[in-house]
């Protein structure tokens, strides 16, 4: 064995690569900070995202419920309006369909026994169906009898509008438009 001791490992060696500048030593620190910070912020953001998403879905559901309710209410109102329209139509028709029989009976009853009514005509106006055109002819009557007729008509809530009467011999002719009076 040779006496020469080889201290090969102890010999100073030059660096294989150049040292980094001092400022670059902050890069790993920044990496860790970015890693921790990124995790923290992204976790927070993720939670906030989920929360916002839930809130959005809940709000949309609430909105949908309200819209369904609005649609139902609108349909209900439309049905009510339609029914009201029909009711108004019926009411309008009925306004012009009041019974004529009580009127003719009242006129006949208002006549004294000695007076004879030879003709009684009641016609309904086409333009205003609630108005009636009355014309009658009485034999042996006087103006007093006409007054009696008018008062009997008034009792049935009809007003005599532009009445005309004429007398030819024994025959009294009376014409009038009967307008319904609302109480």
């Amino acid at each position, binding site marked *: 064995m040779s006496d020469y001791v080889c201290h090969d490992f102890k010999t100073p060696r030059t660096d294989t*690569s*150049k040292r*980094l500048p001092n400022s*670059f030593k902050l*890069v*790993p620190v*920044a*990496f860790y900070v*970015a890693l921790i910070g*990124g995790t923290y*912020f*992204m976790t927070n953001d*993720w939670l*906030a*995202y989920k929360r*916002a*998403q839930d*809130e*959005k879905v809940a*709000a*949309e559901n*609430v*909105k949908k419920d*309200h*819209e369904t*309710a*609005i649609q139902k*209410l*609108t349909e*209900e*109102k439309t049905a*009510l*309006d*339609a*029914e*009201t*329209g*029909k*009711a*108004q*139509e*019926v*009411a309008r*028709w*009925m306004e*012009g*369909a009041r*019974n*004529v*029989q009580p009127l003719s*009976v009242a006129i*006949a009853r208002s006549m004294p026994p000695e007076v004879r*009514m*030879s*003709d*009684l*005509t*009641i*016609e*309904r106006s086409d333009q205003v169906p609630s108005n009636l055109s009355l014309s009658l002819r009485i034999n042996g009557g006087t103006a007093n009898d006409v007054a009696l007729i008018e008062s009997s008509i008034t009792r049935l809530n009809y007003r005599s509008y532009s009445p005309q009467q004429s007398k030819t011999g024994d025959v009294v002719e009376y014409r009038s438009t009967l307008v319904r009076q609302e109480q």
Partner: protein
Amino acid sequence: MNPKQLACVVLMMFIGAMTYFAQIVHKKVGTMKKSATMAKQDATTAEGSRQAAEILTTRTKVETEELRRFLQAWVPYVDKAQTEQEVESTIEFSLRDRGITLVRSRKTEVKASRENKFIPKSVLTTVVIEDEYAKVLNWLGDLEKRLPMARVKACRFTGGSSARQLRLDISLETPLINLAGESAAKTKKKA
């Protein structure tokens, strides 16, 4: 570039990527928060609209209650007179029931109205009868009771063939109401 520099570059790229990714996520969260706020606002607006609709419907219901009750009261009479035959048979039955034997003439025709979908048809009836005074007037009352929706267009009382007899010429219009149809007011609105 030595390995240390390369490692630094890789780390810096990682930092950059992470920051970029975090920014994108943050932006997305912001957008989602905005959407949630908008959705909440929409829900609040919808709630307001619902309340308004509720008030309007309730008010309409209350205001029109009387009219609708009026219609409901007349529905049975409307249902009774839906065809020309029903109207004719009612008149026929009334004449028989009241013992009116002398019917001088009787004519029925149907009048159609295209504009009015609520009353698309009506039956025009003309009857001439002759009988005792009381019977004739009672028959008229009975007819108006049986057909309360019928509109007496004209009636004429004159003396009959004898002193005890009374002649009545009457023409009446009975509407054949279609409750499923639209009212005239609605039809006018549409036009």
